[in-house]
């Protein structure tokens, strides 16, 4: 994966598999502390402590199509290569939260990349999920909730022409306004 936003697109899928109907994605760029933090939390079925402890092992998966799962191990390896970590907290029946940190200025840290496409696609591709996205920098905070968009649209789908561009532009502008130039 060449971008952090691709990893986010990837691990967000785990929440859907866990039966979540609300998933939040938080990104914090803290230049003062030189940290980049990403948190993805869902309200899905969660895991027991034993499973949560071993889920970063590529050969642990609940899936039936293959016996190898690489999403979390990939993201973890990327973070650890940049003086960071990946931590999973999970409670059976309540949900799972994945917390990833990078050293912001680390030379090996991949760029955040195209967040607007990642989020637009998650919102459109999984319309039954309420997606909350919060992006924070030293400048300000930007927030978008697909629940608000859906409640206005009613029976008009998110993949309607016009709506796709609206969502993408909304996120692109919101992020662009407060993004720290790298």
């Amino acid at each position, binding site marked *: *994966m060449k971008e952090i936003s*691709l990893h986010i*697109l*990837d691990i967000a*899928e785990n929440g*859907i*598999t866990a039966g979540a109907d609300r998933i939040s994605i938080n990104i914090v760029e803290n230049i003062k502390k030189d940290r980049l933090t990403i948190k993805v939390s869902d309200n899905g079925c969660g895991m027991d402590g034993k499973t949560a402890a071993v889920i970063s092992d590529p050969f642990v998966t609940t*899936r039936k*199509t*293959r016996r190898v*799962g*690489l*999403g979390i191990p*990939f993201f973890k390896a990327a973070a650890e290569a940049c003086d960071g970590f990946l931590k999973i907290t999970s409670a059976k029946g309540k949900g799972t939260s994945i917390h990833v940190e990078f050293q912001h200025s680390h030379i090996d840290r991949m760029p955040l990349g*195209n967040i607007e*496409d*990642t989020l*637009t*696609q*998650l919102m*459109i*591709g*999984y*319309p039954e999920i309420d997606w909350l996205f919060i992006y924070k920098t030293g400048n300000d905070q930007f927030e978008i909730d697909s629940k*608000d*968009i859906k409640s*206005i*649209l*009613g029976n*008009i*789908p998110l*993949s*309607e*022409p*016009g*709506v*796709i*561009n*609206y969502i993408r*532009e*909304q996120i692109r*502008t*919101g992020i*662009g*306004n407060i993004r720290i130039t790298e």
Partner: protein
Amino acid sequence: MNAIKSLDDLKKIREQAIEKRKATANSGGVQVIVGMGTCGIAAGARETMKAVLDFIEENTVKNVVVTQTGCIGICEQEPILQVATSENEKTTYGKVSPEIAAKIMKSHVLGGKVYEDHRIQI
């Protein structure tokens, strides 16, 4: 600082969409599914889905629902795109680059003709 569009703008888009629906006949509805597992993403599925969404915007395609799915077990064929015209009619395409995605949208989704070149059997 650029102005963020208000939710009122979205209400306008909704009203326009409802008006257009009244004017045009319902084409029956097609579902386009993009494989977005780790394998798909690593192979470029986000750009493939972007091409599908851009095609819908550029050609004002109505009644198409675009969704994602996880790994379906044929990772070597990713990015995978499926076109479902009804419950039982589902065509699977493999190695779908953004360019191929646009061709599938034009031929299959708009024209109703399967794009044989990248069709795969599963």
